[in-house]
């Protein structure tokens, strides 16, 4: 199985050959890869070097945290890559932004109204969690769409709060 993995703007062609071999940009490497006691913690021994890593899936791709540094990457197989190329790049950037609660909490205030024109970086919702008030900001300029929560409401993680068009 071949994948195109993108990291810090660079593409790597990675082929999973079998349980103990991968090729990266054509170079075959012997790998000893295990999930540690069934946890999402992975141990990779490659060329004698021992790396341990947390790997998290996110909405945009994968986060790999190893030796105190986090790497954000996307992993696509060839079909996905072709589809995305045909669609002309990421649809998400152009489209609507849906603000979801990054953690469970209490909606302290919503300093915007539906239909407001807002700037990039403007505070959309203040959410209290773990005794701290967290300002959730807009990643883009636009117009506030439907607001789905009320002040004082308790929300779950990933619950939709509002959208920006």
């Amino acid at each position, binding site marked *: 199985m071949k994948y195109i993995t993108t*990291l810090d703007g660079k593409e790597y062609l*990675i082929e999973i050959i079998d349980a103990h071999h991968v090729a*990266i940009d054509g170079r075959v490497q012997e790998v000893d890869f295990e999930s540690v006691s069934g*946890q999402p913690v992975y141990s990779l021994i490659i060329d004698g070097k021992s790396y341990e890593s947390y*790997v998290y899936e996110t909405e945009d791709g994968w986060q790999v945290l190893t030796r105190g540094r*986090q790497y954000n990457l996307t992993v696509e*197989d060839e079909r996905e890559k072709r589809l995305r190329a045909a669609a002309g790049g990421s649809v998400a950037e152009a489209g609507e932004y849906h603000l979801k609660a990054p953690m469970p909490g209490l909606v302290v205030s919503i300093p915007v109204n539906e239909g407001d024109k807002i700037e990039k970086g403007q505070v959309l919702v203040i959410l209290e969690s*773990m005794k701290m008030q967290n300002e959730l900001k807009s990643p883009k300029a636009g117009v506030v769409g439907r607001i789905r929560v009320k002040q004082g409401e308790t929300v779950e993680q990933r619950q939709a709060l509002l959208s920006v068009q």
Partner: protein
Amino acid sequence: MVNKVLVANRGEIAVRIIRACRELGVETVAVYSEADRQALHVRYADEAYLLGPAPSRESYLRLDKIMDIVRKSGADAVHPGYGFLAEREDFAQACADDGITFIGPRPSAIAAMGDKGVARSTVVKAGVKVVPGTEDVGNLSNEDLLALAPKIGFPLLIKATAGGGGKGMREVRSLEEMPALLMSARREAESAFGDGNVYLEKLVEGARHIEFQIMADGQGNVIHLGERDCSLQRRHQKLVEETPSPVMDEELRARMGAVAVKAAQSVDYLNAGTIEFLLDKDKNFYFLEMNTRLQVEHPITEMVTGIDIVKEQIRVARGRTLGYKQEDVKLTGAAIECRINAEDPYNGFLPSTGRITQAILPTGPGIRVDTGMYPGFEITPYYDPMIAKLIVWGETRAQAILRMRRALEEYRVVGVRTNIPFHQSMMDSTRFMAGQYDTRFVEERFSMEGLAESREYFPEIAAILGTIVAHQQTQRSAQIVRRGERDASNWKWVGRWERMHR
């Protein structure tokens, strides 16, 4: 008296207090909210009583219920820990009224120091310098504060009079932005302390936050256990503390220590407390406030002095004299604490909740971890994000930093994101290594992106790791799809599942 202590707290500090009690042969009573039935303090205590639902206001802040449990359990003493009811005069008073030993200062001292405005005026009378701000005043209205602000000058800080831990604190750069900031500060203070009063203080720039640990007994002896440098803060929350401070010398320590002792004496202080100072670039220092309780970062002082502060608290609460005189207090080596918070340093330090599925603590020489979490424990949105304190000791500051790096590298927490990578970058930063930082360092000069560069870059390794995990996930989902297609053989599946789950 002090044969059975009710610990009116949760998390690591409740565990810390239970440990000291157990080592003294004192019985312990835990209280817990519905979210904490399986918490370590409940598991470790001799007795445990339910307080109520998860939110603090319905559990750990319910003074009435806690006093009921004191009576029901037959506890003869209470330890309040930090936060929650720890700096509430009425709690100390309720204990006094019932003949229960409150392991902390007298109600009058809590009152004097608890209202930050009163505290400032009290120590000023004792001849201690304070940071310029709103003096000698009680509950000022927004109008009053807006009128006073230009006289103090910008930048300034709005601070909660009942405050602590950075809650209800706001920086103000101009009069224009002040009304909105006043509102949010009051809101946060009200929510955290049940008291929305605030005061103003000049923001001293380039300053360090230096605090002195105080111990006082009922015989009038007051000593200090040296300083802690707590300048590394984010949003006024301490993140890293160390002792000795890299900018301290013997002469300054003696002078500041003497002022700290004087400040404590000005309110006839009893038990453990902390005097916080700002120290500016020219080594002028100003009283900031007194925390009339055990401090989160007390272990670094324990590491360099060898004194068990919680045991000393109980000793003093029993009416005995302090076990140490000022000249017995010797600082050996250096200690650092990193507060491990459940938050994602790569995503604006947003809190992270969830069930801890694995936790491997760093151990070995010179390491101490104070924590209330363990694999299987749920980190909820109800309480503070601090899930552990990682404390190291070294013969020298350099050795302590190297040891802290080693410990951070070893620490594994699965289930929530933590700020461990932040601490790793901090321990790598040349300014931290040189001891050159102030209270604005984290926010103004420090970014995860910039500092990651201190660490080795392994893009190919990361690409391989991420790709293998993604590949395995694709394989698994494909199997589920195939399994769904498997209509004709469903009977076989039944048998297989049954066998697996028997």
